[in-house]
């Protein structure tokens, strides 16, 4: 692979692990913020009224800002990290999200649900394991 300016960053494990930490923490927080926003809208029938009610909730705006920031963070990551490795990050996020939902929202993780989530992580990594980084950019 030809050396391009971006490849120099790839050789720097310290900056990449920092990127991983930031992304995983941020993605987890955003997903939890979405759940917080969702529970704020519990019982609300889905439709136009739902959207209007949603736009009045600070929790919804927190989630939206998190989502937009994550989107930009993701684009930045795709420039520095090979695609197959970047997708490992998105798969790993299921772990802290599950733990966070259990701790914060008291969601019960049965054995079957836990096994299902573990299978999904493995499957997502496999699906994205053979994508070449060049294709995406």
């Amino acid at each position: 692979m030809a050396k391009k300016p971006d490849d120099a960053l790839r050789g720097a494990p310290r900056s990449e692990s920092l990127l991983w930490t930031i992304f995983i923490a941020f993605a987890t927080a955003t997903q939890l913020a979405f759940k917080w926003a969702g529970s704020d809208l519990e019982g609300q029938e889905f439709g136009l009224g739902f959207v209007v009610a949603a736009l009045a909730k600070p929790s919804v705006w927190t989630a939206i800002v998190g989502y937009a920031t994550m989107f930009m963070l993701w684009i930045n990551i795709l420039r520095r990290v090979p695609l197959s490795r970047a997708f490992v990050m998105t798969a790993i996020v299921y772990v802290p999200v599950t733990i966070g939902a259990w701790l914060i929202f008291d969601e019960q993780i049965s054995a079957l649900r836990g096994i299902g989530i573990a299978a999904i992580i493995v499957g997502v990594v496999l699906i994205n394991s053979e994508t070449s980084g060049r294709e995406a950019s």
Partner: protein
Amino acid sequence: MTLELLTLIAVSVACDVFGQTFFKLGALGVGKSSIVPPSLWVAIGLVVYVVEIFVWLGVLAIAPLTVAAPIASLNYIGVMLVSRWLFSERITRRQWAGAGIVMLGVIAVALTGG
């Protein structure tokens, strides 16, 4: 799992797959010489993602996050299929296996309710 929840999750996954497809069409520069400029694909993709935000909130107003988020990983399978059928990308056996494993995981999680 109620029909309303299933529908909302299906729409959310569809938004994700369509959004990514539109971005890909934009990135490929499809329509450069016709009336549809590539930037329009990207704009449509962004609109689809905005719609998805509210559909996803609809999902989370009903379902636990540990049910909804794992099931939403169906979008990886959707994107894989679109890559195959629309963009003629080669899907390896390992990727098909991954899709099968995701599918089994989704079924397991869906069985735990929501």
